[in-house]
């Protein structure tokens, strides 16, 4: 199941994955508050496809999802070091992102919860994929 992929390809997929979430959030916000233009809806659909495809190729096919979600007892000493390093960096970044999101929310709240729910799902996605994305970004070979 494990597929080898170059570091540059993994970085490109990481950018596509998180870029897709930002684009989806932006388009969803525009759709909800301004217009249901077909172009925006198609764009949102395409963003979702990009997210799902990059999730599959970057996290699932490379085995990284399995690696970062595995129990510590099943990992060897090198894997433990790599995963723990990634988790440490992930949650520092995750904390910063949460604070920025909360800060933006305070200034943009217009009483509509749908965007907030999507934002919440985006943060949950980020929390679960950030460790494997960091490994994909930093490691020479996986």
């Amino acid at each position, binding site marked *: 199941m494990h597929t080898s992929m170059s570091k540059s390809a993994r970085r490109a997929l990481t950018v596509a994955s998180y870029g897709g979430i930002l684009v989806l959030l932006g388009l969803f916000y525009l759709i909800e508050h301004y217009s249901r233009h077909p172009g925006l809806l198609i764009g949102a659909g395409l963003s979702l496809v990009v997210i799902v495809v990059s999730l599959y190729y970057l996290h699932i096919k490379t085995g990284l999802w399995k690696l970062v979600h595995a129990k510590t007892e099943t*990992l*060897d*000493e*090198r*894997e433990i070091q790599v995963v723990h390093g990634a988790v440490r960096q992930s949650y520092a970044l995750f904390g910063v992102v949460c604070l920025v999101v909360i800060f933006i929310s305070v200034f943009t709240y217009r009483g509509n919860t749908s965007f907030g729910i999507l934002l919440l799902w985006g943060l949950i996605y980020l929390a679960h994929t950030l460790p494997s994305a960091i490994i994909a970004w930093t490691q*020479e*070979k*996986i």
Partner: protein
Amino acid sequence: MNTRKLYNRIAVLREERGISRKELAEKIGVNFQTVGYLEREEYNPSLDLAFRISECFALPIELVFSTEPMKPLSQELYERKKRED
């Protein structure tokens, strides 16, 4: 703390004995990808793992690992023989 790079002869010893990375990995209790990292000297093993590797090859640890670049085994053997003669 800055850790030093450790050099090793794992790849050569493995080839000599006709063992695959997967077989060596099973013997020493790691993932076969970790054997690759060890052979490329991109990962320093713990003391326990270093001893397990040395025991697997039935060699003293200083013949398998070093803090300085290692000479080819053939050269080391030749120099030892010269000293004994």
